[in-house]
């Protein structure tokens, strides 16, 4: 059973609707003590890092989530949910994250040293991701023809360990991680639940690899 953490931030219903569409049973977790009943939990996140992490901690999700991961059970962070997995973010001043992965979250700088047309922030819209060549990639992206996904963010994750990178994305001169996998921890910067068939299939692939 898949659980979606509801800590008061994030489009939990969109994620839930997407899972229903691919016939994956899921529940919304409002009470942290329920986390232990789930094999996989999804950590969504929309908005700014500081506000998300503050709400997350205030609703006492921190400890249960960490112990879920320690038990080698699966955790999938989406958008800001992915960013929250890292040590800290520079959004609104340095704010600590869950420190499940080594690295930080910093502002996108798409226009640095370039004569290209001015690129706006947030980076909003569809973009074609680039896959790394490794074995996990093949599993995640099987049966997906178009690698176009919907992004809505101004900050991106900078991983210390580059071997966790599954896919990257470029925005202007920026190249950053759009999908990562580190043992039982997964992160997706774009919104698979809002990326049409390619997004639904990706969720299906990640969740069916148990």
């Amino acid at each position, binding site marked *: 059973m898949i659980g979606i953490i509801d800590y008061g931030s994030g489009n939990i219903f969109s994620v839930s*609707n997407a899972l229903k569409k691919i016939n994956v049973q899921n529940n919304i977790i409002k009470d942290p003590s329920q986390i232990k009943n789930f094999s996989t939990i999804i950590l969504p996140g*929309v908005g700014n890092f500081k506000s998300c992490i503050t709400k997350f901690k205030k609703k006492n999700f921190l400890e249960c989530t960490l112990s879920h991961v320690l038990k080698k059970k699966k955790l999938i962070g989406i958008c800001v949910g992915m960013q929250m997995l890292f040590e800290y973010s520079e959004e609104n001043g340095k704010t600590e994250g869950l420190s499940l992965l080594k690295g930080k979250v910093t502002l996108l700088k798409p226009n640095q040293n370039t004569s290209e047309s001015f690129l706006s922030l947030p980076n*909003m*819209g569809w*973009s074609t991701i680039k896959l790394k060549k490794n074995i996990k990639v093949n599993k995640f992206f099987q049966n997906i023809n178009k690698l176009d996904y919907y992004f809505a963010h101004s900050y991106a994750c900078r991983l210390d360990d580059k071997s966790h990178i599954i896919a990257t994305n470029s925005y202007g001169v920026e190249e950053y991680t759009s999908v990562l996998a580190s043992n039982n921890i997964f992160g997706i910067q774009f*919104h698979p*639940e809002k990326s049409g068939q390619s997004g639904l299939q990706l969720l299906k692939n990640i969740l069916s690899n148990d």
Partner: protein
Amino acid sequence: MNKNFRIIPRMDIKGDKLIKTIRLEGVRPVGDPKIFAKKYYDQGADEIFLIDAVASLYGRNSLFDVIKEISQEVFIPITLAGGLRCLEDVEKALNSGADKVAINTELHTQPNLINEISKNFGSNCMVLQVDAKKIDEKKWEPYSDCGRERTYKDLLEWIKEAIDRGAGEIFLTSIDDEGTKNGLDLELISSVNEISSVPLICSGGVGELSNIKELIEKIGTDGVALSNLLHIEKINISAIKAFLHKSQKKMYIRQ
């Protein structure tokens, strides 16, 4: 990689019907919004923009149930506009399946709402809806209440202020051209594009595919919102995208 250009169906809703407006006033019922939204999703729409056409006038929110049903079958971003007045409304919209909210009227009396929404839900989900009316050469005024009320503000100053306060996207409609099929007001769009550091979506006046091609080639906004071309002319979005893919190389069109 080239900047991405979004094709967004603009769906004005009255009660439980999709309608088509002319200059934001005249009304013609078109059909069931749920069926249309699903159809546009299947055709390859990049996003859906839903407006409760009467909410800001009669002070009620009726679109939440419609969006709840749509979001069970449509897996692309959905923006909800019309009659949103406070943080609770925004939360209700997001909990009903919207990914972003677009606000116009309320912001003219309560501009701080932009700061609050952006702080609580992220600037990504705070779309500034602007209905612009030309008042002089290269001068426009934002109107509120679906294009009925004057605000006496300068359009560009208002947009700059809203971006400073945390608006993450601009949804710009030319009142003078909306529903006329006369083509987009490129002068207006270009003026806004020059001062905007956030994505810009424009609407109002697209009568044929070459209007969109011209927009991309001459300005290159982040997207265009279409209503007449889709609801009345019934042009398939995949055909629009195929045309743009072939006829221009400046921007990336998701196929």
